């Protein structure tokens, strides 16, 4: 892309959120564009990105103001998720089997299934998990230390720290055996690759790759589900296969798609919050020093990292009727992208929105979603993982330095890093 972003920042007509190259630009540049849209075109319309072998849809509106975004999110009967929440195109029928989970479902079905799983994610259930999260983090950091010591002192913050922590936590929660975990990581990378050619071998046919990843994950789940039906254990998979909703068990398709949702949502989001949190702290050493010295900042610091990084950039809603919202007229079928990353920098809500302030309070960010029934199920788990990870990083790897430029994922949906060069300088 040759568009000069400074010029684009003055000219909203030059902005195209469907251009993949936009999404690998540094965050500061993307936020300049969001600021412009929020100010001048709060419901900016874009043509849909072109996806090989699929009919292009009618386009979408990017919602960048906090108030508009929250209004849409909190009226799920008018702005539904069932046409697809995680893709701009409507979900093709053959992918729906694997990806048509809770997140792309509306009430009443959504509420019933959500209640089954929400009991596994309550603050008290997670309190019991904290010890095991701490063990996992300690083990991962010790391994990273060894990797650096045995090599030239460098590590990849993503592969050596940010990826293994949530992977192990979520796989423990679900009861996924060790031997399947590398496959789970690889497949969830494909699911959330946004078609990034590095992660999808056949770039002409990303749909085939998504389908294959879905089938592989569903296969792992089917095997696990059968094992748990025979020998129940204390894990989420057992809860999923044995619980009834209105006298009805979840179908194997529902279980598989939910499993895929959890693996993917539980892995990629927390991973990117951790890796970009490390990056943000390295860019703001005074904030790092402040948090390191004061564990009572954990609560607000974690919220600020989620606001700042907004690991999931958007979710989609679709109008189920004609109407008007804050002066914007819409028609049934209109698609809206709730751009959380943009709303999280809305000056109307956040003082100095482009300042990274680990003590920010209140911080009503929408990094876990805005008001509405689809608010992140794993928010408490993510908060725990992030808080435990950073405290352990301060204690055990205080010498961690970012040693190069991050390599960004080419995706509009996940604000991700593929690699972040790091260095352990050793005790000084």
């Amino acid at each position, binding site marked *: 892309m040759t568009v000069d972003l400074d010029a684009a920042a003055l000219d909203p007509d030059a902005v195209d959120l469907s251009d993949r190259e936009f999404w690998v630009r540094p965050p500061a540049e993307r936020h300049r564009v969001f600021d412009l849209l929020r100010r001048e075109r709060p419901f900016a319309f874009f043509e849909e990105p072109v996806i090989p072998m699929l009919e292009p849809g009618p386009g979408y509106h990017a919602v960048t103001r906090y108030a508009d975004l929250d209004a849409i999110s909190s009226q799920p009967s008018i702005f539904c998720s069932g046409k697809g929440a995680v893709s701009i195109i409507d979900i093709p029928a053959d992918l729906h089997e694997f990806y048509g989970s809770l997140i792309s479902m509306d009430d009443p079905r959504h*509420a019933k299934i959500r209640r089954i799983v*929400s009991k596994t994610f*309550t*603050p008290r259930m997670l309190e019991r998990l904290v010890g095991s999260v701490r063990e996992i983090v300690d083990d991962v950091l010790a391994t990273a230390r060894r990797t650096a010591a045995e090599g030239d002192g460098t590590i990849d913050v993503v592969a050596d720290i940010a990826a293994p922590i949530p992977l192990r936590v979520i796989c423990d929660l679900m009861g996924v055996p060790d031997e399947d975990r590398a496959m789970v990581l690889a497949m969830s990378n494909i699911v959330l690759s946004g078609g990034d050619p590095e992660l999808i071998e056949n770039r002409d046919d990303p749909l085939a790759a998504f389908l294959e990843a879905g089938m592989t994950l569903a296969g792992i789940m089917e095997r696990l589900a059968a094992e748990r039906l025979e020998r129940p254990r204390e894990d989420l998979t057992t809860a999923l296969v044995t619980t009834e909703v209105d006298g009805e068990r979840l179908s194997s398709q529902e279980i598989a798609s939910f499993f895929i949702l959890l693996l993917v949502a539980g892995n990629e989001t927390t991973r990117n919050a951790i890796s970009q949190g490390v990056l943000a702290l390295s860019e703001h050493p005074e904030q790092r020093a402040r948090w390191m010295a004061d564990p009572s900042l954990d609560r607000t610091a974690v919220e600020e990292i989620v606001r700042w990084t907004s690991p999931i950039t958007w979710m989609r809603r679709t109008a189920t009727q004609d109407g008007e919202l804050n002066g914007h007229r819409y028609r049934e079928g209109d698609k809206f992208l709730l751009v959380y990353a943009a709303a999280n920098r809305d000056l109307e809500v956040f003082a100095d929105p482009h300042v990274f302030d680990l003590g920010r309070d209140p911080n*009503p960010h929408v990094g876990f979603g805005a*008001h*509405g*029934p689809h*608010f992140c199920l794993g928010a*408490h788990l993510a908060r725990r993982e992030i808080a435990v990870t950073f405290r352990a990083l301060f204690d055990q790897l205080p010498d961690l330095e970012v040693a190069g430029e991050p390599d960004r994922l080419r995706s509009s949906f996940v604000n991700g890093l593929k690699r972040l060069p790091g260095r352990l300088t050793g005790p000084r």
Partner: protein
Amino acid sequence: MTRVVVDRELCVGSGSCEMLAPDVFEVDDEGVLAVLEPEPWDDDVPAVRDAVQACPTRALTLVD
């Protein structure tokens, strides 16, 4: 006296309220929200107001 009211149709048991006001709210093992102090003490009221504000499904209201 301030009283907490839960709309059971809206509540999805997210537990956001429990994070902010653990003395007043608890999501039980069945995923159902229990209000431990339906008429919270004055000391708890600010936290309860935060919890009402933070509820992702707007299932909580405070009645004065």
